[in-house]
């Protein structure tokens, strides 16, 4: 028996070690190393001077006006993106859950935004928003909703929402698919029973679909929040934090601080702050949405 056990352990070790080795070098070690870096004043332009400064980087960033702006922008962007993505995904999932001709085709089409590279997504929407040649101006003017062409991304009040719109287009499909799978698992009996009891369509949605959808919804909310709060690609390609500081988010601040100012110490400290924020939020979601199982 002891021999058999050790054969299991030995085999498992051989099978698992390659993965653990890769994750150690490319994930675990950098994460710990990053903490070490965040405690030093490392500026890449002065490679020989790197004093240990305890938590000074964190203190400096927490008191920095750019950090406050970035937190505000990230919050607005995340709340808008997550809310609209989820609402839209619930609608699309309800729609695709109906059986009708062409349903399979629409299901396949749903993968189009999901498979589109985020850079192409940014380029595509930037082109749609283009002040002179873009589709959006042409369409709105043609429909009579707009008098003259506008520089959409140049408007600081709109920029964040326009970027969010591009993100929603790409993120909605996966959310809808996750919700659709959850919906398909709801037994038909529940709907029939509700019908017998005289429930309207709306009542059936609120009292049967929504409670059963809770695990799927939680997954979508947590996942969408995680990817929105850290999103970077669209901000680089569409606005680079601008106009002014209208789209200056946390991920953009980290990028600027690290790779433009070459201040790796504060960059790493900011990364840790973002990681902690992410942890805190996912914990809150799971705490307040996950526990209340019917």
């Amino acid at each position, binding site marked *: 028996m002891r021999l058999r056990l050790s054969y*299991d352990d030995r*085999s*498992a070790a051989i*099978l698992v070690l*390659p*993965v*653990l080795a*890769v*994750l150690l*070098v490319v*994930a*675990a070690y*950098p*994460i710990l*190393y*990053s903490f070490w*870096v965040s405690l030093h004043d490392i500026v890449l332009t002065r490679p020989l001077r790197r004093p240990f400064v305890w938590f000074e980087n964190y203190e400096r960033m927490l008191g920095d006006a750019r950090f406050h702006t970035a937190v505000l922008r990230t919050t607005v962007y995340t709340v808008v993106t997550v809310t609209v993505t989820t609402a839209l995904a619930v609608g699309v999932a309800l*729609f695709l859950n109906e059986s*009708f001709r*062409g349903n399979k085709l*629409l*299901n396949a*089409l*749903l*993968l*189009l935004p999901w*498979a589109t*590279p*985020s*850079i*192409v997504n*940014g*380029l*595509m*929407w930037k*082109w749609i928003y*283009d002040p*002179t*040649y873009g*589709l959006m101006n*042409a369409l709105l003017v043609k429909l009579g909703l707009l008098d003259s062409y506008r520089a959409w991304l140049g408007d600081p009040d709109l920029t964040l929402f326009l970027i969010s719109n591009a993100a929603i287009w790409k993120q909605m499909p996966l959310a809808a*698919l996750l919700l659709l799978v*959850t919906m398909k698992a709801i037994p038909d009996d529940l709907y029939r029973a509700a019908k017998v009891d005289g429930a309207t369509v709306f009542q059936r949605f609120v009292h049967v679909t929504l409670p059963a959808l809770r*695990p*799927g919804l939680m*997954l979508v909310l947590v996942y969408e929040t*995680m990817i929105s*709060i*850290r999103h970077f*690609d669209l901000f680089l*390609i569409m606005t*680079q934090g601008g106009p002014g500081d209208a789209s200056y988010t946390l*991920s953009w601040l980290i990028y600027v601080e690290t790779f433009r100012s070459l201040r*790796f110490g504060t*960059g*790493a400290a900011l*990364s840790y702050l*973002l990681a902690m924020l*992410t942890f805190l939020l*996912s914990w809150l979601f799971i705490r307040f949405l996950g526990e209340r199982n019917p």
Partner: protein
Amino acid sequence: MARRLMLALFSALFVLYVAGPVLWLLSSSLQMESEITAVPPNWLPPNPGLHNFIAIFTAGDSAEYANRGIAGFLPSGAANLLPSLYNSLQVGLWVAALNLVFSLTAAYAIAVIDFKGRRATLYTVLATRVIPDIALVVPLFLVIRNLGLINSIGALVVTYLAVTVPFTIFILISYFEGIPRDLYRASRIDGCGHWGALRHVYLPLSLPALVAALMFAFLTSWNEFLFALVLTQNAAAQTLPIIIAGFVMDFTTSFSFVNAAGVIAIVPPVLLAIIFQRYIVSGLTAGAVKG
């Protein structure tokens, strides 16, 4: 009937929303620079042609390159587009292949073998994905730089492997757990070791999950931007998204050319996603029902 009318209306709205933006990109890519800059815009290309795509594929050819008339202003990095396409393909295939081997073996061990430290291994694997990429990019840049691997395909392959492996292991574990345990016991009684059980029982029975894992690994590598931006510096290792992002931020670039480059970057992932739709959907949503 009211229901049918509603469904038709929703279908139309759905197609418009999901496919509309891409169709506009496609339409733009088939127009000449002079047509694309018409106000109001041409909804459909007046003289559809592949001139922008030809410009991309001949950008490295100096004779053709001199003949700029074909597509307006070519960006200075136009010649890098084809090598970057090759880099993207190379990285994607390497990641997909290595990911399959790594996640297959690890998922088998975690799902099937009852070994010491099994839970700890699973949690370690999953925990690495909780850290945001943007937080990982700074230290990873330093680690890769210290290893002297900046601007190499290998650095990207290893990075993407670490990014994709936790999720594919998760997919495969949930699939393996659905395979009847009796098959495993029978194979062991027949004298198979773990390698034999993996090869003769789990590998042939989990093809759908393996396809999902392969697709996920390839698409993630193909689409990834942030790590590639930081870890690569020139055409020797830069992938397609990096080159395209460079075009977009270069104000002198011809719109039609950039749009064509975007279309080229969209085609492989979209084709793969639609061909392997069933596997991808079941793979991505694995575990969603279990909650």
